[in-house]
Every structure is written in structure tokens, then in C-alpha cells.
């Protein structure tokens, strides 16, 4: 990735949120003692919620880029429910919730209104979970892309409908156990299919900017929000946010699990402009998908299959194949990383 690496880091703290040895101007927004905290304390997200963290990371960066002139439309989902139980709100941004499906349409309207009012300084962000984005709000989203409305849409992908009790979405990975894809029978968990890769679909619309990011890599995420805000027109960000409850991980491991998803290749971090991929975040310490899957009880059946009396080698190999394909397809391994892994 060209952006975040431009900063000259020192030897310690290179990958940390802050770095006391760096000049203030090049430190991360999250390390600022006076950061905006767009999502305030007291929200009702579960302990260790990746989505709450991802939303604060992204919106603080967007607020920074828009110099505080930001309006946000929110789809229904965890993010909406845990932040705004009537009459309380955790949002410290102008924020509006309408329906599950229509966040992108509401944002389109906001952008149009700002244009009419001549308020080009006010920027519009729409956000939602994977359910509201890849399934329920997908039609409205595609329309927003196609019309190239001046909106940054941010999807926080926790890979299922967590708010209603962990039901499968079309962003749920194969083999994962959810309430609607139980780990029973000869083909336990979610089906192996194509799923729905919205970043690639967004790229197919040819919109100015599409990027994936992870809560495990703050510097990269902040860079991408800032970059997205430099464009006018439809932009899309897909942020990977683990859910301790739905994935069956310890609440302390949210970032660790997100990091492993990136480092095994299952969640590729890339960016694209006008439909062409222009950057990728290379793996730093490649790991087998085994290591990643093992951390989560939604994949536990792969390692103690009742049918097979042990490891479900075939399905684990299929998952590895998906990761390998991502790595090859997006060029996630530099020669240097490959050397280290083989050593």
C-alpha cells in the first residue's frame, strides 16, 4: 500500500496506534488525546465489539477529513441498535437512521440536499453492517454506485446478522456455524459457494474508490478513509470487524482474530480506483487458515467432526484454497514475505 508506508517509522512501535517518537502531524488520528470520539462511551455493544471500534476509527477519520462537517445515514443493525436506544444516543456526529434497506438512498438524498443548499463543505457518509449492505440494502447501494452519488458508504462486515441472533448473511464465510446454518449433518455450517463479494461488485460499477480494511490495521484504515474523502462521487469501504459473540472468540481477541484473518489471506486488504486495483497490503507473517479458524467456535466442527471422528481435512483444505486464491489473485505475498515463510 503506497499511503501509510510514506511515514518514516522508527524501530519500535511501528505497528502501534501511536508513536511518541513521530512528529504530531504524522501520528494517527486515534492516538490524538483530543480525537473526536464520534461514537461515545456508554454504547451498548458487547464487550470487545469490533464493529463499535471500527465505526469509531472510520468516522473519526472521516470527521477529520471533513473538518467536522459530516452527516451520517445509518442502516438498521447492531450498530444502530446498540448506539441509539431511545432516547439516548452515542453519536457525536449528525446522524440519521431510517430503515434497514435504505441507508444508501437516504444518504443520496442528503447529498442532493447539500448540493441544492450549496453546502459542498458538508460530506455524507452512509454506514451499515454486512446484512444491511450485502443483502437487504444491496439494491439501493448498487443504485447509489450507478448514479455515482457523492457518498462514502462504509460496510462493517462481521459476517452475519449478529443483532438478531447470528443468522447467516451472504457475507458469512463457508463452513461457519450460524443460527441458520447449524453444524449438523454431512455438510455442517454455511455452504461453500461464491458468497457475495461486494468490494469486487462495487469495483465493477467503476466508482471512483473502493477499499477493504481491517480493525487490525488502524494506519491503513485511516489512510483509506482519508483517501476516500479526497474523491467526489460514490465510494465504498468494506471494513472487517470480528464479533466475539457471533464468532465464538474471547472478547479480548477481537483484534488478534482480525489480524489473523488478514495474515492467512481470507480477508485480503486492497484498494481500487475507478475499477482498477491500485494497491494491496502485503502479508507480514503469513499463517495457515488452520490457525485462524481454530480461534473461533463457529468453526470448531472443522476440528472435531463427529462424522469424520476428527479434523475435517477436506473443508479445511477448501478454506485454504480460498485463502491461496486471494493471495495469488491480489498479489498479497512479496518476495520478502515468501522468503520468510519458507525459511
Amino acid at each position, binding site marked *: 500500500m503506497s499511503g501509510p508506508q510514506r511515514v518514516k*517509522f*522508527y*524501530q*519500535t*512501535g*511501528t*505497528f*502501534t*496506534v*501511536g*508513536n*511518541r*517518537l513521530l512528529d504530531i502531524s504524522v501520528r*494517527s488520528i*486515534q*492516538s490524538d*488525546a483530543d480525537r473526536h*470520539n464520534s*461514537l*461515545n*462511551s*456508554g*454504547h*451498548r*455493544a458487547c*464487550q*470487545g*465489539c*469490533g464493529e*463499535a*471500534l471500527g465505526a*469509531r476509527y472510520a468516522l473519526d477519520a472521516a470527521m477529520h477529513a471533513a473538518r467536522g462537517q459530516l452527516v451520517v445515514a445509518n442502516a438498521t443493525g447492531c450498530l444502530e441498535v446498540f*448506539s441509539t436506544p*431511545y*432516547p*439516548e*444516543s*452515542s453519536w457525536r456526529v449528525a446522524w440519521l437512521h431510517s430503515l434497514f434497506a435504505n441507508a444508501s438512498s437516504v444518504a443520496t438524498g442528503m447529498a442532493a440536499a447539500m448540493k441544492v443548499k450549496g453546502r459542498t463543505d458538508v460530506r455524507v457518509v452512509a454506514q451499515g453492517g454486512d446484512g444491511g449492505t450485502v443483502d437487504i440494502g444491496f439494491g439501493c447501494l448498487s443504485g447509489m454506485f450507478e448514479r455515482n452519488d457523492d457518498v462514502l458508504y462504509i460496510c462493517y462486515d462481521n459476517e452475519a446478522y449478529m443483532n438478531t441472533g447470528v443468522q447467516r448473511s451472504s457475507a458469512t464465510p463457508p463452513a461457519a456455524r450460524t443460527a441458520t446454518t447449524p453444524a449438523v449433518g454431512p455438510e455442517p455450517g454455511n455452504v461453500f459457494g461464491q458468497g457475495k463479494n461486494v468490494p469486487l461488485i462495487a469495483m465493477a460499477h467503476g466508482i471512483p474508490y473502493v477499499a477493504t480494511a481491517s480493525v487490525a490495521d*488502524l494506519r491503513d484504515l485511516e489512510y483509506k478513509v482519508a483517501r476516500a474523502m479526497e474523491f467526489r462521487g460514490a465510494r465504498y469501504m468494506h471494513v472487517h470487524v470480528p464479533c*466475539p459473540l457471533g464468532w465464538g472468540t*474471547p*472478547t*479480548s*481477541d*477481537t*483484534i*488478534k482474530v482480525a*489480524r489473523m484473518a488478514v495474515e492467512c489471506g481470507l480477508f485480503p486488504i486492497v484498494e481500487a480506483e475507478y475499477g482498477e486495483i491500485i494497491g494491496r497490503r502485503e502479508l507480514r*507473517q503469513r499463517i495457515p487458515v488452520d490457525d485462524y479458524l481454530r480461534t473461533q467456535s463457529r468453526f470448531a466442527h472443522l476440528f472435531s467432526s463427529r462424522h469424520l471422528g476428527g479434523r475435517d481435512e477436506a473443508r479445511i483444505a477448501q478454506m485454504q484454497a480460498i485463502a491461496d486464491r486471494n493471495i495469488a489473485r491480489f498479489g498479497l505475498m512479496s518476495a520478502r514475505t515468501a522468503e520468510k515463510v519458507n525459511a
Partner: protein
Amino acid sequence: MNKPFAITLDVGSSLANKTGSWRTERPVYVDRLPPCNNACPAGENIQQWLYLAEEGNYEAAWRQIMRDNPMPATMGRVCYHPCEGACNRAHLDKAVGIHAIERFIGDLAIERRWSVKVEVASSGKRVLVVGAGPSGLSCAYHMALLGHSVTVMDAGPAAGGMMRFGIPKYRLPREILDAEVSRIESLGVTFRFNSKVSDLDATMREGGYDAAFLAVGAHLAKRAYIPAGDTSRILDALSVLRGIESGEQPLLGRRVLVYGGGNTAMDVARSARRLGASEAIVVYRRTRDKMPAHGFEVQEAMDEGVLFKWLSTIKAETEGPGGEGTFTVEKMKLDEKGYPQPTGEFEEIKADSLVLALGQDVDLSFLSKVTGLSVKDGVVEVGPSMMTGHEGIFAGGDMVPAERTVTVAIGHGKKAARNIDAFLRRTTHVPAPKHELAGFDRLNTWYYSDAPATVQPELDRARRASTFDEVVGGLDESNALFEARRCLSCGNCFECDNCYGVCPDNAVIKLGPGNRFRFNYDYCKGCGMCAKECPCGAIRMEPENI
């Protein structure tokens, strides 16, 4: 009531919802003991001075070192750096070159004439230090800073002890030693050289001293019985090294045997090469891996062309026809316990001289009239406060049971000084309790980037054989800073902002540079992410009392 349709309540903030009540475990900031600090015989707070050096604040780093060790420039050269042996970074790539940074800081202090001052009122107490070696100097320094009047007496002509008369110049240039000694002197410490204390009791009485610290070192060379002819060519290592320091040229000849496997043997063999010996051969009864000398010294000696003869003992010397010496050497083999056993196989080696480097004993004759002392295995026993069996008389360095290194001696001096101070003030010195160790498993090493160690420039090898110039070069500022920044800050917050950043509940309050962070327990849900993502293991999760 002016509210929109169907709205009856005012908008409120979620701050009203104190999510801290969900918590079953609470994060707590802790300081854990970095392995380097734990390993340092002088008790330096290495992690802390590296932290200061990382900012480029070398003077603050130097002052931090000076709280424990008055001789950083010397120490950075001659200490065998057990800190680096313990360094957690070795598990990642290579240990931080702590000694090289310490040396850089020490040299900078000399160059910029940084000094320390006595900041307490005079206690009116008089303390005698016997021996101006590392232990005595360290004790004198700390006692002076604690407000006591200190007199150091030494039998030799100058301060430094083994640092001057044992360690060759190519490892410790004398201007460095002199500069650090004079800094101690400027604290008001009185030095009296060529003043051998032969009767401690009498000296104490005459000088009106309230306490004494004994640090005479171990200077009596151990001998091995080697039958020799009339014109014996057998010398001992310490007198050879002392002779070189005093400007004499010991007559070693062209082919020199050195008997022994310790650091002193290496020093003599390498010095012999510098004095013109074409061959210096170290004869040792066991194998290389059993040698007490430090690996890098053996390596440097080998690099300089010193030869080694393992598994050999010297039995006798006879005079050859041409007037040169012939030494009978018996081959040894290691038994199953690793002890060398004679094989009965002999060979003869011709050499111009044999230098014995078989260790040293302590000259305890000056203590003969002191009551209550207990001597065991040739050294004086001391309690945990470094006090001998005689009240008010403390001892340290090579003359007490411990590893015989400069750094251990410096540590003894500090420890004794703090206890002598307590003794003089009729209090008790209670050392601060040690934190739990910050082992490698406490770290989240993802956050540290790869950074290979900076290698100190080595003097051109060809030059070494003929001069006593310093062999290992120093770091310049840029690579000293690089090296300091390789520190992982094990167990101690380095304000990386990770906890502040990764908290999904904004429950970490950033207090600003140097002040670290505080948890806001009103909202902390106890997820534990901060502790997990802390790179250096400075957050502990504790069960909540519910």
C-alpha cells in the same frame, strides 16, 4: 412542549449508561521487571535509560545510569553485558546492543562534561574505602552522594584496580577510565594512593572512621607447580599486565605460552601478540566450550592469530640446547563428568616464556587483627547487606564470594553504600520490592518491526596485532539512536497509544507525554483487548470483586 410527533423524551447521551457495571475483570496498568534490569549485576534501570535515549535525550539517559553506576563509558566497554544475554529481543532477531549504547552515552558525557552534584547535607560521618577498584570507586561515589565524607586508600599508584592493571588498553583506553574516576573525585572523595592498609584496625582508629568498605580485590596470582631449570621463564599474568600498564616491556620473547582458559589468559595472549610475539599459544586443560573466558573474547583472540592448545596441561620446563625453553605437555581427555583426566601421552613445546593465568587469590593479611570476620575458601563472608562479621566493616568485589567481574563489583559498591548509609544513620535499608518478570510470553511482538542489530565497527584486524588501540569501535549518534529504539520496553509502558486506540468503549484516558494513561472504569466493560494488544505487557487483567 415543543417536540416532534410521537416524541416524548428529551435527547440524552449514552454517557448516562455506565457500562462499567458489566465488568467481571478490570485492566490495571503495571510495571513489570524487564529481563535486562533483572540480569544487570550493577542494578541499572536499563529499560528506563533506553527509553530516554530513544527520544535523543542522552543527558537524561546518562543521569538515569548514574543513579546506579558511576562509570557508564567504562562499563559499556568492559562489562560482559549479561543484560544482552537476557534481552527478549533475542527471540525476535538479535539482542539490543545495550553495552554499545551505554558506551556511546558514557563517551558523550565525558565529551560534554556532564557532571553530578551532591544534593544532600553533609552527614558528618567519615567512611574509609580500602581499594580503588570498581567496587571501591562505586561505593565511594554513592557514599559521597549520600552526604558522607569518603577517603579511598589504595596500595597502587592510581585508581582503577583491575580496570587499570588487569584489563589491557585495547579494551579500555585509560583516558576514559581517568575521566570517570576524576568525576568521582570531584564529588569531594579523597584518594590516597601508594597507601597500603596493612592494619585495618589501626587505620580506622587513627583516621576516626565510622565505617569501612573493603574492596582490595584479588591480586595474588595462583601458581601451579611446574619443575623448572635454573633460568625459569615462568611469569604470572597479572604481573605481565601490570608491567605493560606501568610502561615496562615484559620480556616474553617470540613464542609465548599462556596457561589457563579465563579472560585474563585471553588478555595476556592478545597483549603478547601486541608486544611482538609471533606466536601466542593458550594452553588449557579442557575444551573451548568449557573455557571460563567469554565467547567473544576467545573469538577476538582467535581473529588476532592467538593459537589454542586444548586438553593439555603443562608438566615441566627444561632448558633446550639453544637456550630456549622446552615445556612438557601432557594430553588430557574429558571423563564422563566433563573433568579432564591425564592420558599419559606427552609432547614437548618449545617456547621463550610461559605465563600463568590460573586465577587469583585475595591478600587478607591486613585483616589479621580485625575480630569477627569469617573467611571461607580464601574470601571474606558477608551478609545480605554486604557487612562482614565485624560491625561497621563492609566488603565487596573480588574479595567476597561472587562472580569476579567489574560489573558485579560496581553493584557491590552501590549495595554496600546504601547499607553503610543506613548503618550510619541507624536505619535499615529496605530495597524496593522487585516487580514480576516481563518474560517474552508477556509481549505482543506483532507491534515491533524487524530491525537488525547495529554492529560496532571493528578495528581493522591487521592493525590490532601491533597496537594497543581500542579494538571495538563505538556507535555514532545515528546508529546509537537506531539501536536504542530497538528496545522492546518489556513490561513498562512506552506510550504507544495501543490501549487508548483499541478500546471500543473509549474507556482509556490519555494523560499526555510522560504521564501514561488511566482507565475510566465508569465505561470499561472489561473486554481485555487493551491487555491483549499491549506490545510490552504493561496491563494486567484482575478479577473484579463482585
